[in-house]
Protein backbone atom coordinates (compact mmCIF):
# COMPACT_ATOMS: atom_id res chain seq x y z
CA UNK A 1 0.00 0.00 0.00
CA UNK A 2 1.56 3.29 -1.04
CA UNK A 3 1.19 6.68 0.53
CA UNK A 4 -1.58 7.79 -1.84
CA UNK A 5 -3.60 4.69 -1.07
CA UNK A 6 -3.18 5.33 2.61
CA UNK A 7 -4.43 8.86 2.23
CA UNK A 8 -7.46 7.59 0.33
CA UNK A 9 -8.04 5.10 3.12
CA UNK A 10 -7.87 7.94 5.61
CA UNK A 11 -10.43 9.98 3.68
CA UNK A 12 -12.81 7.03 3.43
CA UNK A 13 -12.42 5.78 6.96
CA UNK A 14 -12.87 9.16 8.62
CA UNK A 15 -16.55 9.74 7.83
CA UNK A 16 -17.30 6.05 8.38
CA UNK A 17 -15.95 6.25 11.86
CA UNK A 18 -17.82 9.52 12.40
CA UNK A 19 -14.97 10.71 14.50
CA UNK A 20 -11.39 10.99 13.58
CA UNK A 21 -8.25 12.85 14.23
CA UNK A 22 -5.88 13.36 11.36
CA UNK A 23 -2.30 14.06 12.07
CA UNK A 24 -0.52 14.90 8.90
CA UNK A 25 3.14 14.03 8.73
CA UNK A 26 3.25 13.88 12.48
CA UNK A 27 6.29 12.43 14.10
CA UNK A 28 5.65 9.34 16.19
CA UNK A 29 5.37 11.29 19.35
CA UNK A 30 2.76 12.00 21.91
CA UNK A 31 1.42 15.44 21.26
CA UNK A 32 -1.17 16.14 23.89
CA UNK A 33 -2.84 18.45 21.53
CA UNK A 34 -5.68 19.72 23.62
CA UNK A 35 -6.76 17.96 26.73
CA UNK A 36 -5.27 18.58 30.09
CA UNK A 37 -5.83 15.23 31.61
CA UNK A 38 -5.59 12.78 28.76
CA UNK A 39 -3.79 12.49 25.47
CA UNK A 40 -5.91 13.65 22.53
CA UNK A 41 -3.58 11.89 20.10
CA UNK A 42 -4.38 8.72 22.01
CA UNK A 43 -0.76 7.73 22.15
CA UNK A 44 -0.19 4.43 23.90
CA UNK A 45 2.96 5.77 25.51
CA UNK A 46 1.68 9.10 26.78
CA UNK A 47 2.16 9.69 30.49
CA UNK A 48 -1.09 11.64 30.42
CA UNK A 49 -3.23 8.66 29.47
CA UNK A 50 -5.48 7.75 26.59
CA UNK A 51 -8.25 10.06 25.60
CA UNK A 52 -11.64 8.54 24.88
CA UNK A 53 -12.86 8.46 21.32
CA UNK A 54 -11.16 7.40 18.15
CA UNK A 55 -8.19 8.70 16.24
CA UNK A 56 -7.13 8.21 12.65
CA UNK A 57 -3.56 9.31 12.06
CA UNK A 58 -1.74 9.32 8.75
CA UNK A 59 1.97 9.82 9.22
CA UNK A 60 5.07 9.54 7.13
CA UNK A 61 5.52 6.04 8.49
CA UNK A 62 2.03 4.65 8.15
CA UNK A 63 -1.62 4.83 9.07
CA UNK A 64 -2.81 4.35 12.60
CA UNK A 65 -6.34 3.91 13.92
CA UNK A 66 -6.93 4.07 17.66
CA UNK A 67 -10.04 3.87 19.78
CA UNK A 68 -10.53 3.79 23.50
CA UNK A 69 -13.11 4.28 26.20
CA UNK A 70 -12.85 5.19 29.86
CA UNK A 71 -15.29 5.03 32.72
CA UNK A 72 -15.51 5.78 36.41
CA UNK A 73 -15.97 3.08 39.02
CA UNK A 74 -16.16 3.27 42.79
CA UNK A 75 -13.73 1.16 44.73
CA UNK A 76 -11.43 2.20 47.59
CA UNK A 77 -8.34 1.52 45.44
CA UNK A 78 -9.54 2.07 41.89
CA UNK A 79 -11.94 4.66 40.54
CA UNK A 80 -11.49 4.56 36.79
CA UNK A 81 -10.60 2.15 34.00
CA UNK A 82 -9.78 2.47 30.33
CA UNK A 83 -9.49 0.11 27.40
CA UNK A 84 -7.91 1.03 24.11
CA UNK A 85 -7.06 -0.57 20.79
CA UNK A 86 -4.74 0.54 18.05
CA UNK A 87 -4.06 -0.90 14.62
CA UNK A 88 -1.17 0.20 12.44
CA UNK A 89 0.25 -0.55 9.01
CA UNK A 90 3.45 0.97 7.79
CA UNK A 91 3.54 2.51 4.35
CA UNK A 92 5.99 0.57 2.28
CA UNK A 93 8.33 -1.09 4.66
CA UNK A 94 11.06 1.43 4.12
CA UNK A 95 10.52 2.90 7.52
CA UNK A 96 12.83 1.66 10.16
CA UNK A 97 10.94 0.82 13.26
CA UNK A 98 13.08 0.94 16.30
CA UNK A 99 10.58 0.03 18.93
CA UNK A 100 7.17 -1.55 19.08
CA UNK A 101 6.38 1.16 21.61
CA UNK A 102 6.41 3.69 18.82
CA UNK A 103 3.03 5.08 17.91
CA UNK A 104 3.17 4.01 14.30
CA UNK A 105 5.15 0.82 14.34
CA UNK A 106 3.35 -1.92 12.41
CA UNK A 107 1.29 -3.74 15.00
CA UNK A 108 -2.06 -4.31 16.61
CA UNK A 109 -2.01 -3.01 20.15
CA UNK A 110 -4.32 -3.02 23.11
CA UNK A 111 -4.16 -1.30 26.44
CA UNK A 112 -5.98 -2.12 29.62
CA UNK A 113 -5.55 0.31 32.47
CA UNK A 114 -6.82 0.78 36.01
CA UNK A 115 -6.16 3.66 38.31
CA UNK A 116 -7.18 6.16 40.90
CA UNK A 117 -7.76 9.88 40.58
CA UNK A 118 -7.91 12.24 43.54
CA UNK A 119 -10.59 14.18 41.76
CA UNK A 120 -13.23 11.43 41.73
CA UNK A 121 -14.43 11.93 45.27
CA UNK A 122 -17.65 12.49 47.17
CA UNK A 123 -17.57 16.11 48.41
CA UNK A 124 -20.80 16.63 50.38
CA UNK A 125 -19.68 19.74 52.27
CA UNK A 126 -18.41 21.46 49.14
CA UNK A 127 -21.53 20.80 47.09
CA UNK A 128 -23.92 21.62 49.96
CA UNK A 129 -22.25 24.92 50.89
CA UNK A 130 -21.74 25.99 47.29
CA UNK A 131 -25.41 25.14 46.76
CA UNK A 132 -26.26 27.59 49.56
CA UNK A 133 -24.15 30.23 47.81
CA UNK A 134 -25.96 29.61 44.54
CA UNK A 135 -29.29 30.22 46.30
CA UNK A 136 -27.94 33.57 47.47
CA UNK A 137 -26.68 34.46 44.00
CA UNK A 138 -29.99 33.39 42.43
CA UNK A 139 -31.83 35.58 44.92
CA UNK A 140 -29.62 38.51 43.88
CA UNK A 141 -30.45 37.78 40.21
CA UNK A 142 -34.17 37.97 41.02
CA UNK A 143 -33.73 41.15 43.08
CA UNK A 144 -31.90 42.68 40.12
CA UNK A 145 -34.83 41.67 37.91
CA UNK A 146 -37.19 43.54 40.25
CA UNK A 147 -34.84 46.53 40.04
CA UNK A 148 -35.04 46.39 36.25
CA UNK A 149 -38.84 46.91 36.39
CA UNK A 150 -38.40 50.27 38.14
CA UNK A 151 -38.17 53.54 36.21
CA UNK A 152 -34.59 54.46 35.43
CA UNK A 153 -34.41 57.17 38.05
CA UNK A 154 -35.58 54.75 40.72
CA UNK A 155 -33.20 51.93 39.98
CA UNK A 156 -30.55 51.35 42.60
CA UNK A 157 -27.14 49.73 42.64
CA UNK A 158 -26.63 47.11 45.30
CA UNK A 159 -23.13 46.09 46.32
CA UNK A 160 -22.18 42.70 44.89
CA UNK A 161 -21.30 41.33 48.31
CA UNK A 162 -24.67 42.22 49.86
CA UNK A 163 -26.59 39.17 51.06
CA UNK A 164 -29.98 38.20 49.69
CA UNK A 165 -31.76 39.26 52.87
CA UNK A 166 -30.21 42.75 52.91
CA UNK A 167 -30.66 43.21 49.17
CA UNK A 168 -34.37 42.41 49.48
CA UNK A 169 -34.82 45.07 52.17
CA UNK A 170 -33.03 47.71 50.08
CA UNK A 171 -34.99 46.79 46.96
CA UNK A 172 -38.31 46.92 48.82
CA UNK A 173 -37.51 50.51 49.77
CA UNK A 174 -36.64 51.36 46.18
CA UNK A 175 -39.86 49.77 44.94
CA UNK A 176 -41.89 51.75 47.45
CA UNK A 177 -40.14 55.01 46.55
CA UNK A 178 -40.34 54.60 42.77
CA UNK A 179 -42.99 52.08 41.66
CA UNK A 180 -43.00 50.68 38.11
CA UNK A 181 -44.77 52.63 35.40
CA UNK A 182 -46.19 51.49 32.09
CA UNK A 183 -45.28 52.74 28.61
CA UNK A 184 -47.51 55.77 29.10
CA UNK A 185 -45.81 56.75 32.33
CA UNK A 186 -48.78 55.71 34.48
CA UNK A 187 -48.39 53.49 37.58
CA UNK A 188 -48.11 49.80 36.61
CA UNK A 189 -49.95 48.23 39.51
CA UNK A 190 -49.77 44.70 38.09
CA UNK A 191 -45.99 44.78 37.82
CA UNK A 192 -45.72 46.44 41.21
CA UNK A 193 -47.84 43.72 42.80
CA UNK A 194 -45.72 40.97 41.26
CA UNK A 195 -42.53 42.71 42.35
CA UNK A 196 -43.86 42.89 45.90
CA UNK A 197 -44.76 39.18 45.74
CA UNK A 198 -41.25 38.31 44.46
CA UNK A 199 -39.54 40.31 47.18
CA UNK A 200 -41.82 38.85 49.85
CA UNK A 201 -40.89 35.34 48.69
CA UNK A 202 -37.19 36.17 48.53
CA UNK A 203 -37.44 37.62 52.02
CA UNK A 204 -37.87 34.07 53.32
CA UNK A 205 -34.44 33.09 51.95
CA UNK A 206 -31.92 32.80 54.75
CA UNK A 207 -28.18 32.21 54.81
CA UNK A 208 -28.76 28.49 55.22
CA UNK A 209 -31.54 28.05 52.69
CA UNK A 210 -31.05 24.92 50.64
CA UNK A 211 -31.92 24.47 46.94
CA UNK A 212 -35.43 23.21 47.69
CA UNK A 213 -36.29 26.71 48.98
CA UNK A 214 -35.26 28.10 45.59
CA UNK A 215 -37.25 25.42 43.80
CA UNK A 216 -40.41 26.14 45.80
CA UNK A 217 -40.20 29.90 45.26
CA UNK A 218 -39.58 29.34 41.56
CA UNK A 219 -42.93 27.54 41.27
CA UNK A 220 -44.58 30.90 41.89
CA UNK A 221 -42.60 32.54 39.07
CA UNK A 222 -43.68 30.22 36.26
CA UNK A 223 -46.08 32.73 34.74
CA UNK A 224 -43.44 35.45 34.48
CA UNK A 225 -40.61 34.45 32.15
CA UNK A 226 -38.46 37.42 33.20
CA UNK A 227 -38.18 35.95 36.68
CA UNK A 228 -38.59 32.28 35.80
CA UNK A 229 -35.55 32.34 33.52
CA UNK A 230 -33.35 32.22 36.64
CA UNK A 231 -34.97 28.99 37.81
CA UNK A 232 -33.32 25.61 37.22
CA UNK A 233 -36.34 23.97 35.63
CA UNK A 234 -36.88 26.85 33.17
CA UNK A 235 -34.60 25.06 30.72
CA UNK A 236 -32.44 28.20 30.42
CA UNK A 237 -28.73 27.71 31.16
CA UNK A 238 -28.10 28.45 34.83
CA UNK A 239 -24.89 30.05 36.01
CA UNK A 240 -22.43 27.81 37.82
CA UNK A 241 -20.84 28.70 41.13
CA UNK A 242 -17.75 30.09 39.40
CA UNK A 243 -19.81 32.27 37.06
CA UNK A 244 -21.80 33.53 40.07
CA UNK A 245 -18.46 34.37 41.71
CA UNK A 246 -17.73 36.56 38.71
CA UNK A 247 -21.20 38.14 38.82
CA UNK A 248 -21.14 38.77 42.59
CA UNK A 249 -17.58 39.23 43.87
CA UNK A 250 -17.42 38.99 47.63
CA UNK A 251 -20.84 37.37 48.04
CA UNK A 252 -19.55 33.84 48.59
CA UNK A 253 -18.88 33.48 52.27
CA UNK A 254 -20.65 30.14 52.15
CA UNK A 255 -18.59 27.65 50.14
CA UNK A 256 -16.38 25.41 52.27
CA UNK A 257 -13.95 22.58 51.54
CA UNK A 258 -13.45 23.49 47.89
CA UNK A 259 -11.15 21.04 46.07
CA UNK A 260 -7.46 21.84 46.19
CA UNK A 261 -5.82 23.18 43.03
CA UNK A 262 -3.37 20.30 43.33
CA UNK A 263 -4.76 16.98 42.09
CA UNK A 264 -3.23 13.70 40.99
CA UNK A 265 -3.95 10.59 38.99
CA UNK A 266 -2.08 7.29 39.20
CA UNK A 267 -2.69 4.23 37.08
CA UNK A 268 -1.16 1.15 35.56
CA UNK A 269 -1.44 -0.33 32.09
CA UNK A 270 -0.89 -3.68 30.50
CA UNK A 271 -0.09 -3.19 26.83
CA UNK A 272 0.00 -6.31 24.67
CA UNK A 273 1.26 -5.72 21.14
CA UNK A 274 0.64 -8.16 18.31
CA UNK A 275 3.23 -7.46 15.65
CA UNK A 276 3.93 -9.24 12.42
CA UNK A 277 6.37 -9.00 9.51
CA UNK A 278 7.43 -11.08 6.50
CA UNK A 279 11.03 -12.24 6.65
CA UNK A 280 13.57 -14.39 4.92
CA UNK A 281 15.43 -16.89 7.09
CA UNK A 282 19.15 -16.74 7.58
CA UNK A 283 20.77 -20.18 7.98
CA UNK A 284 24.40 -20.44 9.01
CA UNK A 285 24.89 -16.78 8.14
CA UNK A 286 23.47 -17.19 4.65
CA UNK A 287 20.12 -15.61 3.77
CA UNK A 288 17.65 -17.87 2.00
CA UNK A 289 15.86 -15.17 0.03
CA UNK A 290 13.54 -17.56 -1.76
CA UNK A 291 11.96 -18.90 1.42
CA UNK A 292 9.04 -16.57 2.32
CA UNK A 293 8.15 -16.79 6.01
CA UNK A 294 6.07 -14.66 8.34
CA UNK A 295 6.93 -13.76 11.91
CA UNK A 296 4.15 -13.00 14.40
CA UNK A 297 4.61 -12.36 18.08
CA UNK A 298 2.64 -11.03 21.04
CA UNK A 299 4.82 -8.62 22.98
CA UNK A 300 3.89 -7.64 26.52
CA UNK A 301 4.62 -4.42 28.36
CA UNK A 302 3.57 -3.14 31.76
CA UNK A 303 3.77 0.53 32.67
CA UNK A 304 2.91 2.75 35.61
CA UNK A 305 1.84 6.37 35.23
CA UNK A 306 1.50 9.35 37.51
CA UNK A 307 -0.05 12.65 36.46
CA UNK A 308 -0.02 15.77 38.65
CA UNK A 309 -2.25 18.77 38.10
CA UNK A 310 -1.86 22.29 39.46
CA UNK A 311 -3.92 25.08 37.95
CA UNK A 312 -2.83 25.37 34.30
CA UNK A 313 0.13 23.00 34.71
CA UNK A 314 0.13 19.26 34.17
CA UNK A 315 3.08 16.98 34.73
CA UNK A 316 3.08 13.31 33.82
CA UNK A 317 5.65 10.56 34.18
CA UNK A 318 5.54 6.99 32.93
CA UNK A 319 7.85 4.09 33.52
CA UNK A 320 7.67 0.45 32.57
CA UNK A 321 9.31 -2.69 31.32
CA UNK A 322 8.41 -4.78 28.34
CA UNK A 323 9.32 -6.33 25.06
CA UNK A 324 10.24 -4.32 21.99
CA UNK A 325 11.41 -5.41 18.61
CA UNK A 326 13.34 -3.78 15.83
CA UNK A 327 11.95 -4.46 12.38
CA UNK A 328 14.09 -3.35 9.45
CA UNK A 329 12.52 -4.31 6.15
CA UNK A 330 14.19 -4.09 2.79
CA UNK A 331 13.39 -4.88 -0.82
CA UNK A 332 13.88 -8.56 -1.68
CA UNK A 333 13.65 -9.08 -5.42
CA UNK A 334 13.24 -12.07 -7.70
CA UNK A 335 15.09 -11.41 -10.92
CA UNK A 336 14.07 -13.31 -14.03
CA UNK A 337 16.38 -13.17 -17.04
CA UNK A 338 15.49 -14.04 -20.60
CA UNK A 339 18.23 -13.47 -23.10
CA UNK A 340 19.28 -9.87 -22.84
CA UNK A 341 16.10 -8.97 -20.85
CA UNK A 342 15.48 -9.16 -17.14
CA UNK A 343 12.45 -8.49 -14.90
CA UNK A 344 12.29 -7.93 -11.18
CA UNK A 345 9.50 -8.78 -8.73
CA UNK A 346 10.19 -7.19 -5.36
CA UNK A 347 8.53 -7.29 -1.97
CA UNK A 348 9.43 -5.91 1.42
CA UNK A 349 10.75 -8.32 3.97
CA UNK A 350 13.18 -8.47 6.81
CA UNK A 351 16.30 -10.49 6.26
CA UNK A 352 16.62 -12.68 9.31
CA UNK A 353 14.03 -13.36 11.97
CA UNK A 354 13.22 -10.39 14.27
CA UNK A 355 14.47 -10.82 17.81
CA UNK A 356 12.43 -9.21 20.59
CA UNK A 357 14.37 -7.47 23.32
CA UNK A 358 13.40 -6.57 26.84
CA UNK A 359 13.47 -2.83 27.33
CA UNK A 360 13.01 -0.21 29.97
CA UNK A 361 10.72 2.53 28.81
CA UNK A 362 9.96 5.91 30.29
CA UNK A 363 8.45 9.20 29.30
CA UNK A 364 7.66 12.52 30.93
CA UNK A 365 5.40 15.33 29.84
CA UNK A 366 4.97 18.88 31.07
CA UNK A 367 2.03 20.83 29.77
CA UNK A 368 0.73 24.34 30.24
CA UNK A 369 -2.79 25.08 29.10
CA UNK A 370 -4.03 27.63 28.46
CA UNK A 371 -1.05 29.77 27.53
CA UNK A 372 -1.56 33.47 28.35
CA UNK A 373 -1.59 34.43 24.66
CA UNK A 374 -5.27 34.93 24.01
CA UNK A 375 -7.65 36.80 26.32
CA UNK A 376 -10.09 35.04 28.63
CA UNK A 377 -13.02 35.62 26.31
CA UNK A 378 -11.14 34.86 23.09
CA UNK A 379 -12.56 32.27 20.74
CA UNK A 380 -9.23 30.44 20.65
CA UNK A 381 -7.19 28.87 23.38
CA UNK A 382 -3.61 27.67 23.23
CA UNK A 383 -1.29 25.30 24.99
CA UNK A 384 2.21 23.86 24.85
CA UNK A 385 3.82 20.67 25.97
CA UNK A 386 7.29 19.21 26.33
CA UNK A 387 7.46 15.43 26.03
CA UNK A 388 10.61 13.40 26.56
CA UNK A 389 10.55 9.66 25.92
CA UNK A 390 13.32 7.13 26.40
CA UNK A 391 13.54 3.47 25.47
CA UNK A 392 16.52 1.43 26.63
CA UNK A 393 16.84 -2.23 25.60
CA UNK A 394 18.56 -4.32 28.29
CA UNK A 395 21.05 -5.36 25.62
CA UNK A 396 22.29 -1.77 25.43
CA UNK A 397 21.68 1.41 23.51
CA UNK A 398 18.74 3.76 23.69
CA UNK A 399 16.21 5.68 21.65
CA UNK A 400 15.42 9.14 22.93
CA UNK A 401 13.05 11.78 21.72
CA UNK A 402 12.08 15.29 22.76
CA UNK A 403 8.94 16.80 21.29
CA UNK A 404 7.59 20.29 22.00
CA UNK A 405 4.14 20.65 20.47
CA UNK A 406 2.34 23.99 20.49
CA UNK A 407 -1.32 24.07 19.59
CA UNK A 408 -4.48 26.13 19.42
CA UNK A 409 -8.08 24.99 19.77
CA UNK A 410 -11.54 26.55 20.07
CA UNK A 411 -12.12 27.78 23.60
CA UNK A 412 -15.68 26.54 23.70
CA UNK A 413 -14.99 22.96 22.60
CA UNK A 414 -11.35 22.39 23.34
CA UNK A 415 -11.29 18.63 22.83
CA UNK A 416 -13.10 18.72 19.50
CA UNK A 417 -10.47 20.30 17.25
CA UNK A 418 -6.80 21.17 17.47
CA UNK A 419 -4.22 22.69 15.16
CA UNK A 420 -0.57 22.67 16.07
CA UNK A 421 3.06 22.52 15.22
CA UNK A 422 5.55 20.17 16.80
CA UNK A 423 9.32 20.32 16.61
CA UNK A 424 10.91 16.98 17.49
CA UNK A 425 14.44 15.91 18.21
CA UNK A 426 15.44 12.24 18.01
CA UNK A 427 18.73 10.64 18.90
CA UNK A 428 19.66 6.98 19.21
CA UNK A 429 22.48 4.60 19.91
CA UNK A 430 22.90 0.91 19.24
CA UNK A 431 21.17 0.47 16.89
CA UNK A 432 22.03 3.85 15.45
CA UNK A 433 18.90 4.81 13.56
CA UNK A 434 20.18 8.34 13.29
CA UNK A 435 19.76 11.67 14.99
CA UNK A 436 17.26 13.94 13.38
CA UNK A 437 15.23 17.08 13.83
CA UNK A 438 11.79 17.41 12.32
CA UNK A 439 8.86 19.75 12.48
CA UNK A 440 5.36 18.34 12.15
CA UNK A 441 2.12 20.20 11.58
CA UNK A 442 -0.91 18.45 12.94
CA UNK A 443 -4.65 19.05 12.80
CA UNK A 444 -7.16 16.92 14.56
CA UNK A 445 -10.84 16.65 15.26
CA UNK A 446 -12.42 14.35 17.77
CA UNK A 447 -16.13 14.76 18.26
CA UNK A 448 -17.92 12.61 20.76
CA UNK A 449 -18.42 8.99 19.78
CA UNK A 450 -22.03 9.05 20.92
CA UNK A 451 -24.92 11.19 19.87
CA UNK A 452 -25.82 13.83 22.40
Amino acid at each position, binding site marked *: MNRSQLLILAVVMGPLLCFAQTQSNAAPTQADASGKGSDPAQSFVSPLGLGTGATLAVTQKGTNISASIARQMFNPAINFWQVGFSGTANTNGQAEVYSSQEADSPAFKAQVGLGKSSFIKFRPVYTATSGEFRVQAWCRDEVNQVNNTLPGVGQIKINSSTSCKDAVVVEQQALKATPPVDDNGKPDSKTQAFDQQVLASLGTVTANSDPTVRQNICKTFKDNKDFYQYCDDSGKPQKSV*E*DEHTAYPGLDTYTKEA*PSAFQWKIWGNWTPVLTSTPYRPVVDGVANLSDKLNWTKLLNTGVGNVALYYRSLTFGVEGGFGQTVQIKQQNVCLTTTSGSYSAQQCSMAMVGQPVPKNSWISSTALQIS*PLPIFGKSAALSSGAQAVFSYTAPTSGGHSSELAVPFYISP*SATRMSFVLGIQPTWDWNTDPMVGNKFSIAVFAGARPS*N*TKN
Partner: protein
Amino acid sequence: MAQITVKMTGISRGATGATFTWNQQLKSLTDTGGGNLSTAFQSDPGTFLYAIVVSGNPGDPWTASVTDGTTTHNHAGHMSPAGFDTTGDTAFTVVNP
Protein backbone atom coordinates in the same frame (compact mmCIF):
# COMPACT_ATOMS: atom_id res chain seq x y z
CA MET B 1 -39.54 5.02 37.80
CA ALA B 2 -38.10 7.60 35.47
CA GLN B 3 -34.83 7.57 33.60
CA ILE B 4 -32.47 10.36 34.54
CA THR B 5 -30.00 11.29 31.81
CA VAL B 6 -26.98 13.47 32.49
CA LYS B 7 -24.71 14.89 29.81
CA MET B 8 -21.70 17.14 30.17
CA THR B 9 -19.51 18.89 27.61
CA GLY B 10 -16.17 20.68 27.80
CA ILE B 11 -14.58 18.27 30.29
CA SER B 12 -11.03 18.11 28.97
CA ARG B 13 -9.83 15.74 31.71
CA GLY B 14 -12.18 13.04 30.46
CA ALA B 15 -13.45 10.34 32.78
CA THR B 16 -11.48 11.72 35.70
CA GLY B 17 -12.62 15.29 35.11
CA ALA B 18 -16.07 15.36 36.69
CA THR B 19 -18.31 13.82 39.30
CA PHE B 20 -22.07 13.59 39.48
CA THR B 21 -23.81 13.07 42.80
CA TRP B 22 -27.48 12.14 42.98
CA ASN B 23 -29.22 11.83 46.33
CA GLN B 24 -25.85 11.68 48.15
CA GLN B 25 -24.49 8.95 45.87
CA LEU B 26 -21.81 9.21 43.19
CA LYS B 27 -22.95 7.97 39.79
CA SER B 28 -20.43 6.45 37.39
CA LEU B 29 -19.75 8.68 34.39
CA THR B 30 -18.68 7.37 30.99
CA ASP B 31 -16.24 9.36 28.89
CA THR B 32 -17.78 9.45 25.43
CA GLY B 33 -14.95 11.41 23.84
CA GLY B 34 -14.54 14.98 22.73
CA GLY B 35 -14.69 16.20 26.31
CA ASN B 36 -18.18 14.74 26.79
CA LEU B 37 -19.33 12.64 29.73
CA SER B 38 -22.67 11.01 30.34
CA THR B 39 -24.62 8.72 32.59
CA ALA B 40 -28.17 7.41 32.81
CA PHE B 41 -30.01 5.69 35.63
CA GLN B 42 -33.48 4.99 36.98
CA SER B 43 -34.99 7.08 39.76
CA ASP B 44 -38.13 6.93 41.84
CA PRO B 45 -40.43 9.96 41.69
CA GLY B 46 -39.75 12.63 44.28
CA THR B 47 -37.46 15.56 44.97
CA PHE B 48 -33.73 14.85 45.08
CA LEU B 49 -30.58 16.89 45.36
CA TYR B 50 -27.86 16.49 42.75
CA ALA B 51 -24.47 18.16 42.24
CA ILE B 52 -21.99 18.30 39.39
CA VAL B 53 -18.33 19.04 40.11
CA VAL B 54 -16.03 19.56 37.12
CA SER B 55 -12.33 20.17 36.64
CA GLY B 56 -10.17 21.24 33.71
CA ASN B 57 -8.06 24.03 32.34
CA PRO B 58 -8.61 27.38 34.10
CA GLY B 59 -11.22 29.39 32.23
CA ASP B 60 -12.51 26.46 30.16
CA PRO B 61 -16.24 26.64 29.44
CA TRP B 62 -18.43 23.67 30.28
CA THR B 63 -22.10 22.77 30.12
CA ALA B 64 -24.32 20.11 31.63
CA SER B 65 -27.90 18.98 31.36
CA VAL B 66 -29.95 16.82 33.70
CA THR B 67 -33.31 15.55 32.51
CA ASP B 68 -35.99 13.02 33.35
CA GLY B 69 -37.64 13.48 29.97
CA THR B 70 -40.16 15.95 31.37
CA THR B 71 -38.04 18.49 33.20
CA THR B 72 -34.61 19.64 32.04
CA HIS B 73 -32.01 21.55 33.99
CA ASN B 74 -29.27 23.19 31.96
CA HIS B 75 -26.06 24.47 33.51
CA ALA B 76 -23.17 26.46 32.06
CA GLY B 77 -19.99 27.77 33.62
CA HIS B 78 -16.27 28.32 33.43
CA MET B 79 -13.49 26.65 35.38
CA SER B 80 -12.01 28.70 38.21
CA PRO B 81 -8.32 29.73 38.23
CA ALA B 82 -7.75 26.57 40.27
CA GLY B 83 -9.47 24.54 37.55
CA PHE B 84 -12.80 23.71 39.22
CA ASP B 85 -16.46 24.57 39.07
CA THR B 86 -19.73 23.15 40.35
CA THR B 87 -23.48 23.47 40.23
CA GLY B 88 -23.61 23.07 43.99
CA ASP B 89 -26.46 21.01 45.40
CA THR B 90 -29.48 21.52 43.15
CA ALA B 91 -33.03 20.30 43.68
CA PHE B 92 -34.72 18.17 41.01
CA THR B 93 -38.28 16.89 41.18
CA VAL B 94 -38.76 13.63 39.29
CA VAL B 95 -42.25 12.95 38.01
CA ASN B 96 -43.71 9.66 36.87
CA PRO B 97 -43.34 9.38 33.11
